[in-house]
């Protein structure tokens, strides 16, 4: 048992439901007690979906406990088959069905005899995998199922498209800005003269999956979902893939070079150099922003980054390499994929944090005392308490992170969005200076609040402290107080402050 107040990652069935409901005309039936269909509320609320979420429950109640589901699950599947005529029904186990250990595979078999739809049992165990792993697995499972079905029925189309083409794998409902990202990816590929063969699972029909092998290569924009599918397609169909996330200028360039490379190997020699150059210089404002005087103010300011794998790694890269921000530490809650993460970010910061305990993260943020946080909604709230600004860069998120306006994180437009996000998150440079110059609006009783100990600040020293720019003021205060304690001083005078500073510099 674990005492838990908050989770960064949902249970496994959420991952499966996200995949199933992202496909077109696929229905998920959860084997779950009443009330476990909260997923529908999230789809309907967060994504403001106009359609009924294609998820229903085959309710586990007292009778099921006593007698087993017996005909119930089969009936529910067959009923849904008649009502909605889905192409595929995904029977989704939950934590409850994990313990009940009913033979769900048998229900699937029996139901498939009576229904027109294909029936699959999602191969996920509540106690072994989380939401993201489950979505990765379910996607792979569905793709595998239809490719082997297509293989048997001889309906797979192996012939590659005439023009270079790509499958985008891993665009899933309730993903962080993923629909905006998809538009941006489509634009990017169209600029590169690469056709989109298929987007999976977003709005794809399962019949379309037969077309997968037609594409020249696969693109997995997010580390969290799609990687297993891409690896499988690579192994069994020899399809190359790129798993570079085109987020931030550096990574976009690497991504495009990788595409160039893949196409080259397939016999299509392309050179995207001038495209990268034009885009970087004129479409994206981020490169110019980094050069501009504004961004100078950000130099060496301290930030911490925390979230999922993809966004955290990319965001830290942007801050570190493109904006000159000092990333004090970088962390993820995806404990299951830490090797990849550490490899990605090891050069950015010495401190890589792997934790899914928000209390640990809160303590760490407090002790680091950064000028800005980039994290999830939880970090935003931690920041609120500590009075540190926070830019939200990763799930878990609230409804305000499903914006109506166009807000991609990927591609060249994404770089603009990110630059805005970063810039707006920091206290504006000029404002900061002017506030300090004119005494600011927060100088009263500065010394007396949040003091380390019983050390007193003399009036003069307090005034002197107020003159120090606010973003370093807290540090100066802390250092001076430690110094005073070390020297066994009761009162901090202006002289003490300078002695402390001198000592630190020596």
């Amino acid at each position, binding site marked *: 048992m*674990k005492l838990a107040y908050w989770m960064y990652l949902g249970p496994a069935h*959420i991952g499966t439901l996200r995949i199933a409901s992202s496909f077109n005309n696929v229905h998920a039936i959860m084997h779950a007690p009443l009330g476990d269909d909260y997923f529908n509320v999230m789809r309907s609320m967060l994504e403001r979906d106009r359609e009924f979420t294609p998820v229903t429950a085959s309710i586990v109640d007292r009778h099921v*406990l006593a007698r087993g589901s017996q005909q119930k699950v089969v009936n*529910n599947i067959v009923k849904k088959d008649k009502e909605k005529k889905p192409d595929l029904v995904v029977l989704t186990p939950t934590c409850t069905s994990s313990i009940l250990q009913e033979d769900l595979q048998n229900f699937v078999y029996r139901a498939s005899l009576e229904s027109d739809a294909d029936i699959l049992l999602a191969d996920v165990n509540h*106690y072994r995998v989380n939401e993201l792993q489950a979505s990765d697995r379910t996607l792979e499972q569905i793709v595998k199922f239809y490719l082997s079905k297509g293989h048997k029925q001889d309906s797979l189309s192996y012939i590659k498209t005439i023009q270079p083409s790509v499958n985008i794998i891993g665009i899933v409902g309730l993903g962080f800005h993923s629909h905006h990202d998809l538009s941006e990816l489509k634009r990017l590929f169209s600029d590169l003269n690469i056709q989109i063969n298929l987007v999976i699972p977003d709005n794809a029909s399962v019949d379309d999956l037969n077309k997968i092998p037609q594409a020249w290569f696969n693109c997995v924009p997010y580390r969290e979902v799609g990687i297993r599918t891409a690896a499988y397609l690579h192994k069994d169909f020899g399809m190359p893939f790129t798993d570079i996330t085109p987020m931030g200028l550096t990574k976009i360039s690497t991504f495009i070079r990788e595409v160039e490379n893949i196409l080259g190997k397939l016999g299509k020699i392309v050179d995207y150099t001038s495209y990268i150059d034009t885009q970087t210089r004129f479409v994206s404002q981020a490169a110019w922003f980094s050069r501009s005087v504004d961004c100078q103010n950000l130099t060496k300011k301290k930030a911490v980054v925390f979230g999922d794998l993809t966004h955290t790694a990319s965001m830290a890269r942007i801050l570190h390499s493109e904006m000159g921000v000092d990333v004090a530490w970088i962390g993820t809650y995806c404990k299951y994929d830490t090797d990849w993460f550490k490899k990605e970010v090891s050069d950015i910061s010495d401190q890589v944090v792997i934790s899914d305990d928000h209390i640990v993260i809160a303590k760490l943020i407090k002790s680091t005392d950064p000028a800005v946080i980039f994290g999830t909604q939880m970090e935003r709230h931690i920041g609120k308490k500590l009075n540190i600004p926070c830019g939200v860069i990763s799930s878990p998120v609230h409804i305000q992170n499903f914006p109506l306006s166009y807000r991609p994180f990927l591609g060249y437009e994404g770089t603009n969005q990110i630059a805005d996000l970063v810039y707006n998150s920091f206290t504006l440079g000029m404002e900061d200076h002017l506030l300090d110059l004119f005494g600011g609006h927060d100088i009263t009783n500065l010394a007396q609040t949040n003091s380390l100990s019983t050390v007193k600040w003399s009036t003069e020293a307090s005034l002197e402290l107020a003159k120090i720019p606010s973003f370093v003021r807290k540090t100066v205060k802390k250092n001076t107080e430690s110094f005073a304690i070390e020297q066994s001083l009761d009162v901090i005078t202006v002289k003490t402050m300078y002695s402390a500073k001198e000592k630190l510099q020596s």
Partner: protein
Amino acid sequence: MTEVATRLTFECETGNYHTFCPISCVSWLYQKIEDSFFLVIGTKTCGYFLQNAMSVMIFAEPRYAMAELEEADISAQLNDYQELKKICLQIKEDRQPEVIFWIGTCTTEIIKMDLEGMAPKLEAEIGTSIVVARANGLDYAFTQGEDTVLASIAQRCPRKETNYLANKKQSLAKDFFENKSYRNQYISNNSFMPLVIFGSLPNTVTNQLQLELENQGIRIKGWLPTQNYSNLPIIEERSYVVGVNPFLSRTAATLMRRRKAKLIGAPFPIGPDGTRAWIEKICSVFSIKPHGLVDKEEVIWRNAEHYLKILRGKSVFFMGDNLLEVSLARFLIRCGMIVYEIGIPYMDKRYQAAELNLLQKTCQEMNTIIPCIVEKPDNYNQLERINELKPDLVITGMAHANPLEARGINTKWSVEFTFSQIHGFTNTLDLLKLVTKPLLRNNIFNSSEAVLYTSKSINTKL
């Protein structure tokens, strides 16, 4: 469905409907009982639901947490008692609650974790009260969670004044009597009726209802739950109890059977009609002739005319998810609406008897169809019926609200009725505001040039 019935009809469907898990009661009960801590013993599924359903509340360091079961707990490789002890000690150290509620979930039911057996032992060992409530989705829907918790607390109410309590009261009374103005008031009013009201309501609402009763000369002995666990009301044999919410049938049964209290079966104080009937029933039990109630109700209705104009003649469909449906339907029929269907998760005809009578009477007086009450509804069938009936308003959960709106059907999110102040005379207008908001909004949209905001045309099948 549309055939005209002369009496109430009841149907029961498949139970494939959307509702909140009953553990959601934690979100309002931890706020109500201020010295409590709620520990939900369940899985990530429960935790995920709670943190999303409670949304922003979760960031306010709520006095609630999950005891998250891991694989080793399920396969009994770990000792439940030791694990719970570890967690409860930590809670005790961090938060010093007066009571820890253990909320049993589906998982603890299935693996048959003996929470009721462990609680008294652990309680003695760590010195903090532990109350067990099995609010799981196998047995209950949404608000019934509160019912399981209150039924458990009911057993903990003191039977008579202990010496300690008496002393405490005396010393309190002493302080109290030093204050002159209070003294006079107290002396004139010190006759407490042997009546305890059960049901968790925000403190402002309990004060309002208490005041209504005091106006009739009824001073109650207390509420279940109280603001503090350490201050539960005394329930003696043959004391009277009365409920404020329709979903409290287990609590009522517990009070009657285990505590030998007498239940006053009354309609619920939702809407001015319900409030009046509730007070009148209580008065009749204590042989008090109620005064001023008829006038009061009339004034409230008159003041609400602005809203009633919007509602009259409009039809409404309750998909059913929180057990408030019968009372709300009765109120809306009195407002002049036509109710097509009252979906409800669970219908206790005995506990709700007075409310059902009032519903039938209201229909007759308003000369309108008597709606069918559909227990354990099937949401899919209901959507078919909604498509056929095209009601002016559907009261439903969030899972269906946006898709229905996209099809041109006005919806009101049913959960709001659970979290808003809807009881008593005072809150009538707020209740009406909730109901009329979607209708008003639609008027605004239709009166302007705005194109319909849906992707589908209204004629599209649901």
